[in-house]
């Protein structure tokens, strides 16, 4: 019953979030601010994670396909497809669910328990829309850039690890990452990331918005936001993969 209650309330919350903003000028200002807070501030962690992720994928692939019949460039090809298809969108989104999701839930949750959201409601402002919609739009705009950065850095990480350890020659790796390249894989990855951005921001916003009590409950809401948005990312990853690649 609790599950159905949250599904229903989440649907109504999302509807409220997409209500018409009071002032478009302020709304666009907020989007720009949130693009900085949620997107630009995440570039560092995305770069670090992607570099090491690419490196590990390359090394693991190399050690697992160490057979004479498999050409070395297959390491680059496998690393490229793993990074583009899965890691850069899904893993980066899971990381963002932790970083951005907890930030959104705790920010909005604190505003709820300190009655700042009530202030907006009393003024006649659509508080859910005012607080959450700029975050949704900002992350939807920023996440494709983060994913593309992640793809590039991941491949650089793979090349660095592969060539420095000597498991794959540089020219073979570069040939591998160009071999049988399917551009739609990037589109597929970006579509997924946009859906994940929507899930991260709305789920975190939902748990923050309906926080009650004090700091302990805000902490719980933040944890729930991260856990549930992570599960939803994995679930929608499965659904979107079936829909887009089948």
């Amino acid at each position, binding site marked *: 019953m609790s599950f159905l209650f949250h599904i229903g309330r989440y649907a109504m919350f999302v509807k409220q979030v997409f209500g018409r903003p009071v002032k478009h000028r302020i709304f666009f200002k907020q989007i720009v601010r949130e693009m900085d807070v949620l997107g630009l501030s995440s570039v560092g962690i995305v770069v670090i994670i992607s570099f090491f992720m690419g490196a590990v994928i390359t090394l693991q692939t190399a050690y697992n396909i160490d057979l004479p019949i498999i050409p070395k460039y297959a390491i680059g090809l496998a690393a490229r497809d793993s990074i583009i298809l899965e890691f850069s969108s899904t893993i980066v989104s899971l990381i963002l669910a932790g970083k951005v999701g907890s930030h959104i839930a705790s920010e909005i949750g*604190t*505003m709820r328990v300190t009655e700042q959201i*009530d*202030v907006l*409601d*009393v*003024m006649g402002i659509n508080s859910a829309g005012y607080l959450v919609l700029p975050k949704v739009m900002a992350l939807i705009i920023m996440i494709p850039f983060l994913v593309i950065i992640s793809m590039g850095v991941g491949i650089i990480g793979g090349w660095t690890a592969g060539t420095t350890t000597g498991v794959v020659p540089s020219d073979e790796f570069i040939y591998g990452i160009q071999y049988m390249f399917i551009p739609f894989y990037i589109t597929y990855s970006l579509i997924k990331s946009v859906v994940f951005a929507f899930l991260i921001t709305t789920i975190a916003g939902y748990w923050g918005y309906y926080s009650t009590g004090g700091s302990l409950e805000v902490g719980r809401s933040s944890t729930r936001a991260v856990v549930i948005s992570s599960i939803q990312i994995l679930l929608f990853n499965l659904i979107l993969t079936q829909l887009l690649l089948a």
Partner: protein
Amino acid sequence: MIEARNIIKSFDGKTILKDVSAVFKPGQTNLIIGQSGSGKTVFLKSLVGLHEVDSGDILYDDRDFTRMPDKDRIKVRQEMGMLFQGSALFDSLTVEENVRFPLDMFTKQKLDERRERANFCLKRVNLENVNHLYPSEISGGMQKRVAIARAIALNPRYLFCDEPNSGLDPKTAIVIDELIQEITKEYNMTTIVNTHDMNSVLGIGEHIIFIFNGEKYWEGSSQDIFQSDNKELNDFIFASKFFRKIKDKL
């Protein structure tokens, strides 16, 4: 004028407000008093629409707030100012930006005009040279005054104050009380103050409603309190030895 008619409000099957009716006139400080958990905050939040009532009517100058469509409700809400218990200032905005916030949202004034109005409101609550500071950088009493300045920025017709003195020292509490009373007279606002502070009750209580267990038990002025033989009211007002002595002397 605000009129509440037969307000009933429940949470999870428990009735918090039981058929409460009251009329709050403009130009005077209307107080809602009662013990913690008596339902006075629920009543105040029901009046401003933060809680939807189960039944009853709330009229703002004969406009039925409970039944009007959301579009009209937003217009009425823009005539309200509210001071919350914990000030509820926006942490990410400076003092001036907090006061300017309703002006930014609802007026088409130029930035200079909005700034001028924000500064006027801050001066009105005796705050100067704090415009650039954040709420965390000023005292609790100053935060309350900033919240009052924000509440009056749009020249509201109705002012609601939920426990404006909570967490303040007696001297600052009196300053806030007097400020609320002065502003009420100056702008002829309908002001409703939720409090359990006896200094406020006796100091600014021109019209007082006593809520006990979700019911309206008594209504009158601060002068009438001393003559009342309502047991629940007397137990509440004269709970301390000090106030009992004052009553005995009178």
